[in-house]
């Protein structure tokens, strides 16, 4: 596969390490009321769709950036690639 890196352009997927569901960015609030069950869901429940999926890939043999790749798990079509740090900020993970 080819991942179109937002900074570096098309790069072979063999340069990347796969982590999985990009919902891992949404780490719950440890001080929250339901922190225990929220963390349980966060750690153990993952979507595994046959179709479009937002995934985390690490450009290990490249610029060491974490990316959020929107990929169709059936066709391997990739519709969007973003820097995970941008996604995290957009989701309110700024300090």
């Amino acid at each position, binding site marked *: 596969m080819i991942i179109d890196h937002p900074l570096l352009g098309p790069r072979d997927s063999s340069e990347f390490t796969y982590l999985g569901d990009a919902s891992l960015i949404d780490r719950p609030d440890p*001080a929250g009321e339901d922190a225990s069950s929220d*963390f*349980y869901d966060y750690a153990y429940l993952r979507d595994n769709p046959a179709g479009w999926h937002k995934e985390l890939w690490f450009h290990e043999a490249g610029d060491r950036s974490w990316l959020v790749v929107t990929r169709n798990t059936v066709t391997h079509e990739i519709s969007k690639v973003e820097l*995970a740090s941008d996604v995290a900020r957009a989701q309110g*993970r700024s300090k």
Partner: protein
Amino acid sequence: MSQKNRIEGGQINRDKVLNFTFDGKRYSGNAGDTLASALLANGVRLMGRSFKYHRPRGPLTAGSEEPNALVQLRSGALQEPNTRATTAELFDGLSATSQNRLGTLSFDLLAVNDRLSNFLTAGFYYKTFMWPKAFWEKLYEPVIRRAAGLGSLSLKDDPDVYDKGFLHCDLLVVGAGPAGLMAALTAARSGADVILADEDFAMGGRLNSETLTIGNEAGADWAAATVAELASLPNVRLMPRTTVIGAFDHGIYGAVERMNDHLAVPQSGKPRQILWRIYTKKAVLAAGAIERPIAFANNDRPGVMTASALRSYANRFGVAVDRRAVIFTNNDDGYRSAADLHAKGIRVTVVDPRADVSVLKDYEVLSGAQVIDTMGRLGLTFVKIRLADGEERTIECGALGVSGGWNPNVHLTCHQRGRPRWDDGLAAFVPADLPAGMRVAGAAAGDLSTAGALAGGARAAQEALELDGAMPPLPEAEDAPVNITPFWYVKGDGRAWLDQQNDVTVKDVRLSHQEGFRSVEHLKRYTTLGMATDQGKTANMGGLAVMAELAGKAIPEVGTTIFRPPYTPVAIGALAGRHRGTEFHPTRLTPSHVWAKEQGAVFVEVGNWMRAQYFPRSGEENWLDTVNREVLATRNSVGVCDVTTLGKVDVQGADAADFLNMIYCNGFAKLAVGKVRYGLMLREDGIALDDGTAARLAEDHFVVTTTTANALPVYRHMEFVRQCLVPDMDVQLISTTEAWAQYAVAGPNARRVLEQIVDQDISNDAFPFMACGNVTICGGLRARLFRISFSGELAYEIAVPTAYGDALMRRIMEAGAAFDITPYGTEALGVMRIEKGHATGNELNGTTTAANLGMGRMVSTKKDSIGAVLSRREGLNTETDLRAVGVKPVDSVQRVPAGAHLMALEGPVDATRDQGYLTSACYSPNLGHHIALGFLKDGANRLGETMRVVSPLTDEVVTVEICSPHFIDPEGERLRA
């Protein structure tokens, strides 16, 4: 020996005679021959024995789709089984042997299988060898393996070199026939980067095998001229002898280029084959079409071929398989074969099952007739024909060309699960769903005429590259329509082969249908139709057609099996490339490697690192003697060990301390500058991930160490936290594992050694336990010093830029000479850490929590950190949780096996009574007996208890006493000395 079947014409070089042997017999051929064409020129039709029945077989085709003519090429370690004689390029000195025979090729003792054919029908493995069970291993399997099979391996190391490579292009053209050449030419003239790959050694595709003209040139001459023009262009890469084996995601294609296979002696250091990964923007598949046979009784004798193969051998190679030939065809292309053979002076009779064909030809045409049988023990001698009026006629001949129509070569169009579409006019499947970026042109697209191929190729390139303007002018060429009446097999009682490679007959398909195997994928597995080296390229359509007829369905309703890469077989060596043996992965050497080698160290692979395992001295009987000496010398005086392999991550930034607070379960915010702290990282599920130390070199600068094995995963994890969880923290990470050579100097005399090296005061007051800092050594070299200890002794780790690592190790040895400083390896390191009760990967094994490790109180409740929340959940905090303990044998001469389980002293031993397990064990030279670390339920409260450790694997049962995991200096006085 004379080439008795060599005739005029063709593209072989008659001035260049090549000598070769087949089954030890000497023959000659010419440059431009394949092994098959050269053997046929010499009158040799018999080239192999069939898979199951050991029937005599000759080539069915003149290409890579060949099911029969598989031979072993070369000998000794270079021997390669299952080489297709039809594609093996002849070279001087080639030696080939036939395979799958017992005795000689013409007298194969296993031909008795042919008489047992009623017994060896579809599914015979499944039905026959079920019982008794013991017979399978002892009798059936060896016999079957001997009898059924293809070539054999040399069982020697492959001396050839294989490479992998990477290419990039705007347009990849697969196949260099008329469509591919035209596509490449159109693209190349536009300035695009073009790769043209063809599996043959001569580009031109079918044009080399035809008498057709293009413009006013012979087709082969036009092809040669076009190839020459392409070769002159800098933006074109021509890749003959290159098979595109797969179409992968996002325009990536795999290809195998045969660099050396056509040379007698492979060039030293040169790859035999290169497996290319080709990154394309667009691709044109111009892979042509494959002629398919018709099944009839005994249609597998040497001399029976596809009609186009007879034509290829005559036109391209100047070979008449026999001077008398019969063509059996259901379509007009068969007449092209007949006409070409006739023109070469071969006497031809055409047998056409269609009743309405014109018989007005220069040669005999029997319309409405069918071939119903053949004769000839080791090769075709007679063909039996049933004429339109029902009469039978026998023709004496040595060559029978069969044409059941042409199958567009859709293989690569289906590699991403695309399914082909049935075309009634061609009576064949044509490409439908294409991989993104691929276009198909020429015969592969179902355009079977030369004019159609040229136009299709040009158009495909124009569309692919979005070129403006009109179609380029195309030379005039043949544009005959396809005229075919589907005809798959001749009805009758005899065995009619559909798949010659796997010995699958029409009867077998019928039987499997009767037995309920009605899905095409089941048919394939049950009968083996379409398996093995040719993957049914000439067989599958016939099988599908018979199956469709039996099911009363149309062929497209039955569907095809899925085409998967590779298109043709690929040597495992090509897939491995250079990554085999000691080059399986790169080797990482420590800064002291050269020095350690000089000391005679024994090395051990740790990940990719080569680490000194121990340093044997003469007089030591075994490794244990050596390790015991290294341990005692270190504990009694001083030892030195290369610990460079530990992962090191440089953590800087205003929020560096906050960041460490996040990734470690224990606190780091208050760690003073110039101090080191042990840290434990958890996974988010509360399980321990890794441990190490973090040294605070400045307010905003830490150096974090990881275990050797986890250096990369921990760095990845830290970047995940930084980028995905705390994107606006001011923290920068960079891995510096290899930038610093780091040595542990341990033992009561460690300070006395380092005092001679470090320029600053390192007395206990100035540099106490867990101190760290930038220092200079040896008169000014920048270095880092850490007062940390894995061994439990007074110890330091000293780090210098790696380029100085070798020099520093030698200097430490000099400085330590007065104290008999002893280099120690990973074994002694392991013994000392077990004696001290320090955890490593054996204990941080992916199932253990901080509490299990006896570090439960380290998990801070005052701050957030990865894994903190889930480490507190109920399931990980019960009264019977495992706790780290030490174990020692009650009878001190007994060994304690690592991996063994802890059981009560009395009672049965089973999993329900499991009390815990041992993770690490060794002989302690300081204590004089074995010791072990492990986990025991509620272990912290069971010190002093006597238990059994049980190792069902090694049948050991040892009575042990549970004790503290800190066998040596539990108060830590030595550390602080």
